[in-house]
């Protein structure tokens, strides 16, 4: 028999999922997640997750962009090939500002997208959950919680009972 990934349980609606998530969090599980077709207000906190770290990537991207912009103009118009145009200085912090500004935003945006992927460990085109037809319905209108067997507290029977207790239905074993 294939290795077990974990248990998947279905919940009726948003409030049910929300309260169940709070209970799973309070029960001390670590390797588990909720699945819903929409972002739910306050759910990360109910799941015991802190604020997302994506901003760090944004900040790094933006910082690099700004200095790359300024350095690029300095290098090209003053250092490598100074060219006198309209009596304006070869370099000044003022006229390259639009360039530095645009690059700040460009690299910050790339940083954000990359940050989102990194923090979500995507791309990940295969995942055991995709094997479950019930799970595939999540993206339309279902609410699920999956607890992974790699969780130290996991015990197939006890966890199944626990999921039932907090309102889960159609509990399935998901295989790797």
């Amino acid at each position: 028999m294939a290795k077990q990934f974990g248990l998947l349980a279905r919940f009726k609606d948003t409030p049910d999922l929300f309260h169940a998530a709070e209970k799973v969090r309070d029960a001390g599980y670590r390797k588990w997640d909720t699945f819903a077709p929409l972002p739910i207000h306050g759910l990360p906190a109910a799941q015991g997750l802190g604020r997302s770290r994506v901003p760090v990537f944004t900040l790094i991207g933006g910082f690099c962009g700004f200095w790359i912009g300024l350095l690029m103009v300095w290098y090209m118009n003053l250092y490598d090939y100074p060219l006198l145009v309209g009596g304006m200085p070869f370099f000044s912090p003022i006229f390259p500002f639009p360039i530095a500004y645009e690059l700040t935003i460009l690299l910050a945006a790339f940083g954000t997208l990359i940050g989102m992927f990194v923090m979500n460990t995507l791309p990940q085109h295969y995942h055991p959950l995709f094997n479950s037809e019930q799970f595939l319905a999540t993206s339309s209108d279902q609410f699920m919680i999956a607890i992974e067997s790699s969780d130290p507290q996991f015990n197939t029977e006890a966890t199944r009972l626990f999921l039932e207790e907090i309102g889960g239905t159609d509990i399935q074993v998901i295989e790797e």
Partner: protein
Amino acid sequence: MSTHAQANSSDASIAFAQTASVRASRDYTMPALIVGLVGTAIALLGFFTGMSAGDSRPLFSWLIGLSFWLSIAIGMLFMTLIFYIFHAKWPTVLRRQLEHGIGLFPLLAVLFVPLLIVPFIHDDPGILWKWMNAERYIVGGGSVATDPLFLHKSAYLNIPFFIGRVIFIFAVFAILGYVLRRLSFQMDKTGDMANFHRARIFSAIGIFFCAAAVTMAAIDWFKALEYHWFSTMYGVWFFAASMRAALSVTLILIVVLASRGVLKGLFNQAHRYDLACLMFAFTVFWAYISFSQYFLIYNANIPEVTFWYNIREKNFDGSLNSWWWISLSLIFLHFLVPFLYLLFYKNKVTAKRTLFIAAWILLFHLLDIYFNILPGKLPLENPAELGYVVRQFSITFYDIAALAGIGGLCIWSYLRSMKRVAPLPIRDPNISASLAHHE
């Protein structure tokens, strides 16, 4: 839901408001009044002695002090209008504070009167706004009366029209402030939605008049100090600066009120966060407006407009003057520091941290007012000689007196207004949503 009868609530709310605010925290009404009266008395003493001695500096003190407090009230008025127009729900909990702020305009109008009577009682009517004195020497030779630029502009820059505009500006602000306060206070009593709808309609129409008034104020009171200079962006700058000041003051008010008394805990983290986000947005907007104005003038490099920035950087002989440092501090301390500071989540939600940055912005807003008002091109003693003197940056005793005095009177009026009504718009349709606001 509450089962209280409708009829009792209106009387109860007023009685309650009177007792509660007194009971909850110390009453600063009298101290504010005393500071206000003493400060304005000193500043006005300086104003009139300076005037008779031909020293314009105390007059500038008065203009700076008045502009600072006026910009806050104007910003609060704009905030109220914008919140109504956008039907914003979360700020309902702080709207009462704005409503106390927009009640200040009649007082501020009275405090503007000394500036208006100067041209009538002084033998140099142009001591503050130099175009008011046709005989005044100007840099580059000649007098105002022979200045072709002035002659061209005299259809706009003349004393009767100027007074008319001052009346228009204050009338717009005061009437709008009065109407919005009245409708909101009515709402407290009756809970009739007609008040709310009317307030929205007044806001939508009123914002046009406010835009006109704030533009005129910026042109007449600040830009016309150096009447040669012109910039189409200037009215927008004053709007942006006022918004920053008003947001900071509002934040300080709500955080202080929420830390004690009846409003304790009612302004929560989410309110602070959203208000701080608005502060951030207007920090960027202010920088955008100020930078664009500078950038376009710098790049086009046309002397008829660059001189305004030149005197804020250099003396006639090309040496850097005191304004250079003020300019730099505006870029780095008025923009960059708040910008970086407000990027961080914690700085937007922790009460003490938001207080710090609000006070910081307010301080540099004052410097921005100085920067826009005070520098001037003064002719040399001998008008035949080439060159000019730049009025340098300084903080005088009268500046402080005017700021404290006008501020004291504003706070006094504010606190009196607070006693009259409940501290929240209790019957506003969005008040519960606002109280329950969360991130």
